[in-house]
C-alpha cells in the first residue's frame, strides 16, 4: 500500500508518489528565465527559497499551454534542487496498492514518464515519475 497524490495534467488524471512531494502551493509571479529548455517555466520564490517552475505539459510533449492560467504547483525535491511542477489542479490524496505495469497502448511521451498504474476504485491511474517531468521532453541521457 502507498499514498498517492492525484492531480490533473492536460485533463488527464495522474498520480504522484506522495512520499516524494513536499507540498502543494499556489504560484504567481513566476520570473521567466531566458535561454533555457522550454519546459522550464521560470523561477518562483517560496519562503525565501528559489524554486524552478516546470511546465509539465511541455515535459510530457502535450503542447504548450497558457502558463498564466496555471497557478497550482506540486513541490518536489530532485537532486538537491526544489521544483514546482505546474498542474491543472490537485484532486486528492489516496491510498492504493503497489503500481502495476502500464497498459501497452500508451503514447510515447506518457510511457517515458509513467512508472506504472495504480488502481483506485474502478479507475486505473498513471503513476508519473516526478524526475522525468523535471528532466523535460528530451531524456538527459540522450
Amino acid at each position, binding site marked *: 500500500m502507498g499514498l498517492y497524490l492525484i492531480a490533473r495534467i492536460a485533463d488527464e488524471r495522474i498520480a504522484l508518489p506522495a512520499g516524494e512531494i513536499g507540498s502543494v502551493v499556489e504560484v504567481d*509571479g513566476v*520570473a*521567466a*528565465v*531566458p*535561454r*533555457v*529548455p522550454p*519546459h*522550464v517555466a521560470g*523561477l*518562483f*520564490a517560496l519562503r*525565501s527559497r*528559489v524554486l*524552478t517552475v516546470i511546465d509539465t505539459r511541455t515535459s510530457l510533449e502535450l503542447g504548450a499551454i497558457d502558463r498564466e492560467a496555471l497557478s497550482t504547483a506540486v513541490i518536489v525535491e530532485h*537532486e538537491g*534542487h526544489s*521544483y514546482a511542477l505546474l498542474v491543472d489542479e490537485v484532486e486528492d490524496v489516496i491510498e492504493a496498492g503497489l503500481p502495476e505495469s502500464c497498459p501497452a497502448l500508451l503514447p510515447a511521451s506518457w510511457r517515458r514518464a509513467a512508472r506504472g498504474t495504480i488502481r483506485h476504485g474502478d479507475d486505473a491511474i498513471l503513476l508519473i515519475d516526478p524526475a522525468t517531468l*523535471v528532466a*523535460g521532453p528530451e531524456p538527459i541521457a540522450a
Partner: protein
Amino acid sequence: MGVRVDDLLTDFIAETRETLEALAGEIVAWEADPEDRARLDSIFRFVHTVKGSCGFLDLPRLQRLSHSAEDVLAEVRSGTRTPDAALVSAVLAIIDRIGELTDALEANEELPEGEDEFLIAALVHNAAAAAAAETSAIAKVNVMPAAPPTRGVSRSIRLPVELLDRLMAGVSDMVLARNELARLLRTGETSSSAEVAFERLSLCVGEMRDAITRTRMSRIEGLFAALPRVVRDLAGELGKTVKLEVDGGDVELDREMIEMIRDPLTHIVRNALDHGIEKPEERKAVGKPEAGRLRIGARQSANQILIEVSDDGRGIDADRVVRKAIGAGLVTAEQAAAMSWSRKLELIFEPGLSTAEKVTGVSGRGVGMDVVRANIERIGGTVDIESTPGQGLRLSLRVPLTLTIIPALTVSAGGTHFAIPRSAIDELVRPKGDQVRIERIGGELVAFIRGVRLPVVDLGRFMGLTDEARPSLLVVLRAGGGERYALGVEAVHDHEELVVKPAAPALMASGVYAGTTLPDNSRPMLLLDVAGIAAAASVGVAQQPVEERPINKRRVKAALPTLLFRDLDGVMRGVRLALVERIEDVPADSAVETGGMRMLPLQGRLTKLYSAADLPQTGRLRVLRLSDGGAMVAYAIDQVLDVVEMRGELAPAQVAGPIAGVVLHDGGPVEMLDPFWLFTGAAPGSANDDSPLCLVADADDPWAREVLAPLLGAAGYRVTLAGEPIEDRVSVVVTTGGAPEGVDAPVVRLRGTPDGADPDSIYRYDRDGLLRALRQHVAGGK
C-alpha cells in the same frame, strides 16, 4: 550491522585522509631533522592508528603495510635503527600507498597487490630497493595532483564543539524571539513592541548566518600541508635545493574555495621550482645562496584572502615574454612597444604562451598560467604578477572569503533583472560623445571606449527579451583570460551583497548563469556567468580588443575630454581625461596614513592619496590614478559618472587647492580638479630608470648612507654608493671629502658647518642649496 560497518569505514576513510594531509609536511620535516622526536612520534601514531582500525575493519592489505611501517618506526624510536634517506623514502612510499588504498577503498576499486611486497621489502635494510620504491612513489606523486579522480564530492567535516554550541544557542534565541513575535501577533499588541521583537529576531538571524558561515570555513593549513611534500619530491627530481617557508596557515577560508585554489596553487609552486629557482651551481655563480627560497603566505585583507607565492629564482624577463607573444601572434610589435613592464609580464597569462624554452616533464606544456588565471577568476579572484629578472617572482592571488555571498551589480534588459558579480566588472560607461561610442560593423555592435575597441553583447537581444539592440549603458566585463567585452544593458539598479545558490541543472546547462539569488524584493534573480555569455555569444579571438588607431579629426576648439565622477563628499567633479591613467579598485584598508598624509601602495610604490572626504574604512575603495607622465597621485572617488567633451570656460578658484575652478557643463557647475596643485604635493621622487644617477662618495660615513642617500632618493635621483658596481653613467658625485678616482662627473662638495672655508661647498643641511646645485650639474652634464 552492515550499515554500521559502512559508517565506520566512511569515518575511517575521512579520518585517514585528514591525517594524511596533515602528515605530509611532518614527514618531510622529519627527514630534514631525523632527531626530531615529536615528528617521529606523530608519524608513528598515524601508522599505529591505521593498523588498529584496519584490523577491526578487516582490511588486511592496509594492516600489513601499516604494521611493517610501525615496526620500523618502533625500531627508530627505541634507537636500534637510525633514520637515513632510504628509510625515510621507504616510509614515505608506504604512507603514499596507504593513501592510494584509502582512495581506492572509497571508490570501491581494486588496486594491484604486487607492489605492496616491494614496498615492505624496501623498509627492511635494503637501500637499493628503497631507492627504487622511492622512484615509483615519486612517479605516482607526479600524477596525483593533476588528477585526483577517485575523490568523492561529499566529504564529512569536523567542527569544534564550541561552534556547534554557538549554533544551538543561536537557534534557541531565535525560537524565543519567534515565540514572542507570535504572541504579539496573536494579541495584536502595538507595533512598537513587535518591532523590537523583530529586531531581535533579525539580530539572531545575522548571528546565525555568521556562525553557519564559520562552519564552512576551514584553515588554509590543509591546503598548505601538502606543499612541503610536493616541493621535496619535485626539488629532488630536478636536482635543486629549495627552502620552503609557509606562513599564515591559520587564515580561514571557505572549504569550497580551498578546493578551488588547490590546483592553481600547486601549479604555481611547480612552476616556481621548475622555471624560477635555478640549479645550485647556477645560483652559486650569480652569488645567491645555493638553496633557493620559496615563500608561501596567506593573509586576510578586508573580505578577501591574499595568497602570495614568491621565490628568489631567476624571475621572468618581460622582454622575452613579449618576444614570444609577438612570435605567437598574440600582440603586434607596435602594441608591445607601448606596453608597460607589468602589462608585458601579464602576457604570460595569455592562452597559448608558455615561456619555458624547452618543455619539461614538470611544466611548460603551454597549458599553464592562463589556466591558473581562468580558475582563479572563475571564483571571483584575481592574479597579479611582479618580477625582477634575476631576483625572483611574486604571484599574488586574491580570492573572496566565500563563494556564497558575493557583491553584485543589478542590471536590467527587456524588463528582466540580472545580477553581475562585481569582481568581473571593469567599468560602467554611457555611450555618449567621441570617447565612448557604439558602432554597427557587419551587423555586430562594437564599442569604442577611449580608443579601445570592444565587442558588445546586448543583454536584451542575447537573452531574446528584445528584438532591437539599443543599449543605453555599457558594462565592461572581464571574461577571463584577459578577454574583455561590453555588455549592453538598459539600466543599472543597485549594488548589493547577494546570497547566491546554485541553480537547477536545466538552468546551469544553458552556460550563461552562475546561480540564483533572492534580492530584497523577493523576486528571484539570476546571476550571470560572465565568461559563459562571452562563449555563448562567441565573443572570440576574431573580436579581441584591439587598440584603435587615433583618427586625425578636426578638433573642436577647447573641447577637452573630461572624466566626470561623483566625489566622496557627493559633489560631481571633473578631471582632464588625459591625466587619468587608470580607474582602480583597491581594498579600503590598504590606504595608510603616515607622516600627516595618506598614502596608497600602487604598482609596488607608495603613492600620495587625496580625498575630498573621509575614506571608507572597509570594503573597496575606488581611486583615479593620475599621472603627469612622471609623478603619480591617487584620488579617491565614489563612482565614475561619464566621460564628456567639456567646452565651457573655467572660472578659476580664488584659493589654491585641489579645485582649479568651476566649469559650466550641461547647465550645471562642475568643479575641476587642479592637476598642478595635486602633482605639486606629490613626492617628486619615485626615481625610475631614466633618473640621473648620483654617486655618494663616502659610503663608510653613516651620515652619507643614512641621511644623504635617502634625501637624494626622495628628490628623484637614483643613488649608488661608492664601492657598489656602477651600472650606468654617473651624472653627479656628492662628497663630504675627496672625490673618487676615475669617475667623470661634476662633483658637489658638502661641508659640516654652516660657514665653511670653501666657498664652493654647500652646508650639508642646506637642502635647497644642495638640490639646486645638483639640478645645475645634471642639467649642465646633459
